[in-house]
């Protein structure tokens, strides 16, 4: 599904990604972990062409490095950014309509997962709570069939109850899409992921099954973070 080889990103004089290489097989959830600032978000942005990069990134067999972002997304890549990045001045319904990208959207699926979004269709998205904004950010990528989802810290800043809801939704999605999940919360990763990649100083320093994280000492050594159940 995804093969990344020797990916480098330099931004403003900083060498942020220093030869990231990994692959993700089709299906399931692969978690990308690591301390703050090691390049996890930058890796996702580089895969989407949102930051300039060198090296190779193949998605579904196609070399996409150098492609414009919209073309990569049209390949079937969905992106749920760390800061949600919903369009705050548009209504909820307009945010969803935009995400249809000219095709008819799968609204029944979205509204069955997030019934609240249907009720709040006319509300300005900027007035939603943090949890509702996260639901909208996830809902946007569900309107179309997207075999690969890049999901960046979807539980960040959410109340524990909402973390559980988001995890449930992602677990459901993982049966129909491949998810590359950037996540700092070890418990969320344990719940969702089958494989784990650990980044440090702009490179992948560890790859392995997610089960390894059940060893608290190893998890702390590899990732340096933990989180609430």
């Amino acid at each position, binding site marked *: 599904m995804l093969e990344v080889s020797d990916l480098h990103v330099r931004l403003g004089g900083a060498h942020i990604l220093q030869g990231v290489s990994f692959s993700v097989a089709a299906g399931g959830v692969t978690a990308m972990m690591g301390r703050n600032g090691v390049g996890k978000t930058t890796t996702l942005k580089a895969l989407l062409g949102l930051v300039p990069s060198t090296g190779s990134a193949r998605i579904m067999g196609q070399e996409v490095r150098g492609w414009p972002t*919209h073309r990569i*997304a049209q390949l079937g890549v969905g992106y749920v950014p760390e800061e949600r990045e919903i369009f705050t001045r548009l209504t909820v319904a307009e945010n969803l309509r935009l995400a249809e990208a*000219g095709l008819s959207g799968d609204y029944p699926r979205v509204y069955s997962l997030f019934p609240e979004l249907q009720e709040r269709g006319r509300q300005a998205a900027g007035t939603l709570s943090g949890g509702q904004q996260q639901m909208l950010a996830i809902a946007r990528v569900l309107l179309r069939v997207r075999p690969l989802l890049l999901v960046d810290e979807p539980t960040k800043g959410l109340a524990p109850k909402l973390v559980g809801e988001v995890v449930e939704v992602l677990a459901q999605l993982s049966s129909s899409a491949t998810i590359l999940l950037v996540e700092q919360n070890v418990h969320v990763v344990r719940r969702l992921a089958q494989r784990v990649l650990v980044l440090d100083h702009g490179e992948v320093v560890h790859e392995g099954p997610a089960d390894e994280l059940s060893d608290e000492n190893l998890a702390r050594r590899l990732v340096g973070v933990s989180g609430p159940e």
Partner: protein
Amino acid sequence: MSTFIAISFSGLALGAIYFLVASGLSLIYGLMEVLNFAHGAFLTVGAYAAWVTATHLPASVSAPERFLVAVVVAVLAGAVIAGATEVALIRPLYRRPVSQILVTVGLDLVVVALLLGVFGSNSQAVPVPSWLAGATRVGPEILPNADFVALGAGAAVLLGLVWFLGHARYGLIIRAGVENRDMVAALGINVRRAFTLVFVIGGAAAGLAGILNSVVFSGALVSPTQGDSLLIFAFIVVVIGGLGSLWGSALAAVMVGMLQDYVSFYAGTGGLAQMGSISVVLLLAVVLLVRPSGLMGEAR
């Protein structure tokens, strides 16, 4: 009272012309963060295209039809040169603001020089229907017909843009793109098409402003530098209204147009006609001091 109403009406018409120019500038900056100094050239090209059309149509074409066709050609000419500018000059320079400023300033200089070289420095007269040069009695007032046309055009463009941005799919893309163009692209939308469309819309409005400004305020004369003088006031309108805000531009255009006309007239009777332009700059300074992001703009 009669004079005050006449000046107010003239100020509104001037505001409408400013809005036609400023709306495109504001949308272009709002979506693309491009300070387009070639916008005045779009306006001038539109005016010259109208003049060439109006003076070359067969004599059998009536004056009103001649003028209408000239206006349509002005709009198309503005749209075409603006679209071509975006594709050929701006697109390769995304996220390079200094280069964009240099290339648009350069384009403006080239267009003015070309027009001077081809048509000379003399102003050229656009034939207009006699009705347009006349006036209409409204109650006790007699108001110029050309002002009605300018106001109608400004209102129509404002309403058209409001509908487009609120209901059309590309309008939605433009509104979203003003907020976060990377995320629009990440949804699989070719935001660059929206960029081109915004330039085309802005150029069309500028072309319309070019011919209407000639008819309403310049004695139906077109000149190679008319775009540059209007562009300065249009930039002031955009900054006062708030970069990227259509309604802000509309409000600021009316304020600037009316203030300029009031001050020009009342100070002009005391021999200080230039105070009209100075008052606009003072208004800009006051707005920037009180509200740096403009009347309806958002802090960036």
